[in-house]
Structures are given as structure tokens and as C-alpha cells.
């Protein structure tokens, strides 16, 4: 294989920036990479170019490598525009620093500009100067990569960091909770629920809500961290947005948190899901509830409340627990009394009548309701909490002739 052409190409490129490199030396490096290490020729060319860049202290030319040409540096970008796989130069403010998770990491945290924020990691091997929280820096030739769908900025040995003197004003843009995506996010939200800590290292966890929805949050124990007050409204800047099993949660340990006046009318994460009811779970139909003030738990058949024991003066209620399936995902749904009444056409009074007089009792209500909803297409509206939709409104899906026509076109059109 002939490497001289590629070697000349690289050599010419460095001539432009005033460096002389012996094409033979380049050719030797290329040959070694390609023949000994089985590296793809284009990748080898890129790798040799980058190595020489480093040698001459020329900013790397981006992942396009040899092809990008013309000795410019990496693209100067706003943080919000930095996409994984790119070499970028950015200017931003260190808004959070986190304890390094590994000895290979010198520093980690969040850097922000007016367009957005991104997590960063400075490798220990990079020998980069330590950056201070609250200061502005110009970071040249860092690489954006992606881990589990979250972009982060990697500071390596080819990256140069310069502190910027002026302290520019920086106001993070808060987004609605439903507009968050994995990475970094800023929101204005109210603490709507506080949960028992499920881990000894956990300081607090619960649910934050705004007008658009709710999201789980967690604060891990760390010196100086304080719990949020349930019912209060906070501005939360630069929280880590993590994704797990397709659901987002906020880690507030990195965030700037400021309590605010005022209130937010929290939407319960208004969800609307459509599909077929594929299962009606036991415990659906007519149930008995504990009459103790504030309890309202469902009683067993023997009128036993897990907390208040036998309660002969129970109250009746209706509910349907089931699975609503759209063919891609199955949603757990819980239909409340008035929804059950309107969907099944069986009122609480009618159900009570059946439960008390039919030989099958409450089971008969379950069976009648199951027969009316199982296998039917419905749309449920409600709050989605912990993967279960608490349905406060629902209707049967109607046949849309427009959709029918569109599908006929789609099926017939492209054949």
C-alpha cells in the first residue's frame, strides 16, 4: 500500500502553518498504524495529524481530521449547540464543581454560558489548571462526548484553558419540567411531595412540580446541603437531569437553589394515554375503604384495614386498576370512581345494590365491569406518578374516518 500521497497531504498542511515535517517520517507513522495495528487509513491520517498538532501546539482540527483542512481551530460554539462527537471551543462560567469520582479525573462539574450548561470532566492526565467555581474560562479544543444520552465536555491534554477576567452576567434559563432532557436543567418548581429516604446517604427525595408536570428529585448527603421545605417554591439552577428506565429525575447536589415567594399551580404531569385495556386487575370494581379520618385505605374482604384493623362501618368506593396498552408500552392506570361510573355505566349505588344482593357479591361487580372495559380502546387523562396514571377523565376512542383514509393512502400509496 502506498502511503506517500497521504503523507504529502499531511506534510503540506503543516507547511501552511509554517512547520516542516519530513513526509518520510509521516509515512512511517501511517504505515505502522495501518499495517501493524490495522487502523483504518482515514483514522490513521487523523491520528497522525492530531499527534503533530500536539507536537507543534496547533489546536486540533476536529474529527474531520485530514479532510477538514485550513488551519483554523475548533469551532467556537455556544454550549447549547455543542453536539456529541465535536471538538469545540467555548467560553463559560463554572457554576458547579463536584468531587471527582475517580483518580483518573482531576475535576468535574458544570460549565454554563447564556445558551445553556454542560457537564465537564478534566482528566488527571490532561494536567489542566484547576478551575474555580464562579469564574469564567475560555476552553479551547475540548471534546464533547456522550454517555447514556448525556453530553459532557472532556478536557484532555490537547485542551487549553484560559481564565477570562470580566465577570459577565449569567442568568440561567429555566425550562418547564416537561421540557427537561438528560444533562443539565434549570427549573422553577414547588416541592409537592417528600418521600422517606430509601438510602442512608440520601438527605431528601420527593417530587417537584410546576405548571407542566412533576419530576422526582434527590439530594445526597454532603456538607452544606439542606433539605427543601415541602410546599415551598424554589428556583433551581443547574441540576443534573438523569434518566433511568426512560424516566427523568433531578439530582440537586450540583444545583444552585433559591427559595422564592409565591405559589405554583402544579399540574400533575397531565398525561394522556390511549390504547386498549389489556388487563383488569384484582381489587377493581367495588371496594370498601377505611372510614378513619385521613386513612381511606382499601379494606380486605373481612373489613380489615392494615392500620386501623377491623372497620365494620366502612364506606364503598369504585375503582378500576388495570393496564392500558398502546402496542409499544403498557401503562398502569387507576380509574377513580366517577371515571369508572361514566365508563361502565354502573353507578356506585347500582354497584352497592349488586354487591349486597347478588350471590357473587362484590365479585359480580368486578365481572360486570371487566366485561365492559376489557379489550376496549380508551383514552385516559390524568396525573402520572411513578409510572401509574391516576385517571380523572377518560373517553372511548372513536373511529376517525380521516385516520382511516390516511392509513389507506399510506398503505396503498408507497407500494
Amino acid at each position, binding site marked *: 500500500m502506498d502511503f506517500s500521497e497521504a503523507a504529502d497531504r499531511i506534510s503540506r498542511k503543516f507547511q501552511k502553518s509554517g512547520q516542516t515535517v519530513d513526509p518520510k517520517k509521516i509515512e512511517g507513522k501511517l504505515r505502522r498504524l495501518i499495517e501493524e495495528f490495522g487502523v483504518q487509513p482515514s483514522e490513521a491520517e487523523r491520528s497522525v495529524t492530531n499527534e503533530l498538532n500536539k507536537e507543534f501546539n496547533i489546536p486540533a482540527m476536529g474529527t474531520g481530521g485530514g479532510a477538514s483542512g485550513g488551519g483554523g481551530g475548533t469551532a467556537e460554539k455556544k454550549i447549547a449547540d455543542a453536539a456529541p462527537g465535536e471538538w469545540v471551543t467555548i467560553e463559560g462560567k463554572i457554576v458547579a464543581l463536584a468531587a471527582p469520582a475517580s483518580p483518573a479525573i482531576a475535576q468535574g462539574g458544570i460549565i454554563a454560558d447564556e445558551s445553556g450548561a454542560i457537564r465537564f470532566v478534566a482528566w488527571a492526565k490532561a494536567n489542566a489548571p484547576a478551575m474555580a467555581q464562579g469564574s469564567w474560562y475560555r476552553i479551547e479544543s475540548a471534546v464533547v462526548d456522550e454517555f447514556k444520552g448525556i453530553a459532557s465536555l472532556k478536557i484532555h491534554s490537547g485542551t487549553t484553558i484560559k481564565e477570562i477576567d470580566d465577570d459577565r452576567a449569567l442568568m440561567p434559563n429555566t425550562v418547564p419540567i416537561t421540557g427537561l432532557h438528560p444533562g443539565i436543567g434549570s427549573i422553577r418548581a414547588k416541592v409537592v411531595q417528600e418521600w422517606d429516604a430509601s438510602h442512608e446517604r440520601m438527605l431528601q427525595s420527593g417530587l417537584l412540580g410546576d405548571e407542566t408536570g412533576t419530576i422526582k428529585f*434527590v439530594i445526597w448527603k454532603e456538607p452544606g446541603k439542606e433539605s427543601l421545605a415541602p410546599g415551598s417554591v424554589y428556583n433551581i439552577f443547574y441540576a443534573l437531569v438523569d434518566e433511568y428506565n426512560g424516566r427523568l429525575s433531578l439530582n440537586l447536589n450540583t444545583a444552585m437553589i433559591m427559595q422564592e415567594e409565591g405559589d405554583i399551580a402544579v399540574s400533575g404531569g397531565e398525561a394522556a394515554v390511549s390504547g*386498549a385495556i389489556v388487563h383488569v386487575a384484582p381489587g377493581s370494581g367495588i371496594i370498601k375503604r377505611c372510614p378513619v379520618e385521613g386513612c381511606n385505605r382499601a379494606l380486605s374482604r373481612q373489613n380489615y384495614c392494615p392500620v386501623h384493623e377491623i372497620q365494620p362501618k366502612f364506606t364503598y368506593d369504585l375503582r378500576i386498576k388495570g393496564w392500558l396498552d398502546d402496542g409499544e408500552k403498557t401503562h398502569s392506570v387507576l380509574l377513580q370512581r366517577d371515571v369508572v361510573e361514566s365508563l361502565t355505566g354502573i353507578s356506585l349505588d347500582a354497584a352497592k345494590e349488586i354487591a349486597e344482593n347478588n350471590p357473587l357479591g362484590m365479585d359480580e361487580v368486578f365481572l360486570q365491569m371487566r366485561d365492559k372495559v376489557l379489550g376496549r380502546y380508551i383514552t385516559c387523562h390524568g396525573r402520572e406518578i411513578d409510572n401509574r396514571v391516576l385517571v380523572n377523565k377518560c373517553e372511548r376512542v372513536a373511529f376517525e374516518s380521516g385516520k382511516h383514509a390516511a392509513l389507506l393512502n399510506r398503505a396503498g400509496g408507497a407500494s
Partner: protein
Amino acid sequence: MSTPAREMGRKDGSFEREPARRVFASELRECRYQFKDGEEEKSPTFVLLPTGERCNRIFIVGTLTEKQRQGDQNIFYRGRIVDPTGTFFIMAGSYQPEAMQQLAKIETPAFVAVIGKPSLYRKDEASTPMVSVRVESINIVDKATRDLWVLDTAERTLDRIDEFAVGTGPDVVKAKEQYPTIDPVTFRKIAYDALAQIKM
């Protein structure tokens, strides 16, 4: 960050129910490949659709045209459900007592909705595999529900065909390997014919 993630999973129960896929009888009939996802005894079994999607569970709506009680000691019911494209073979045995009782009760013909698990079996070594659906639930529905299902299933089928054409996911690759002679585009015509049968 792995610790909090795991905590969350446990707290909410990371269990995800397998969705019930929508598939026409004529596509399900072509399935020849079945696999287990994982090594455990309880790992779910999937049937691979020729359009490149695995299904552990399906949702079908059609006309129950025949049912038959079989077996002496182990009673079970077989049935045939017809959709606009072909026939599904269903069965419910003593391991699905509720489904079996429901099936026993239903008078043919009737529009029914079935949620069940497809699996492949052979009458003997030499015969080609058949796909049968073990019923989890069955219920009488109306024609409106059947029409909605045809729409739903046509849409999902077309989605799969489109994905098959451009997709590189493992199930699409596997389908191309397992069903070299099936061109999923034929299911586009089938979807069209199914839709065309709905009278407005």
C-alpha cells in the same frame, strides 16, 4: 451516579410489562423463529415477526368462528379467530382457568378481543411450525372495537415495515436473517386490504 439510579429502580419496581403487539393473522402465521431473552428459567419467550419486531404478547380483535373442547383429563379449549387477513389459532387450558371459562361461555360467532402469548409448535418433527396463541384474557366486544383494532394494527404494521426498510436494530437484522424469503412489503398490501374491508 449508578447508586441513585439503582435505588430509584428498586423503589418504583423497575418491572415493565411486555406490551401487547398488534399484528394481523397473515403476518403472525409466517413466524418461524422463537427465542428466549436471557438465560433464566423465567426469562420471557418471544416470537419474531417477519417485519422485525419481537413479541411476547399480542392483542387481537376478530371474530371467534369456532371453539372446541378437547382433552379428557386436562381439559382445554381451542378456538379460531378470524381477522380481515386470516386466522389466529388460540387455546386456553387449565393453567388459564379464567380465560378458559370465558372462552367456554362465549357463543360463536362473536367479535372478541384476546390478549395472549404467541408460541410456535409442531405437530411432529417433520411438519412446519404453527403459531398458536395462549389466551390470557378474552372478552366479547363490538364491531366498533374491531374496526379500531384494524386501524391500530394497520398503523403498527406500516410502522414496522418502514422501520424494517431503514432499521438496523438487532430484531430487524435477525428478521432479515430468519426470513430471507419474506419481503415485508407484502404486508403493506395486506394492511391495505384489511383497511379497505372497513365499510364506512
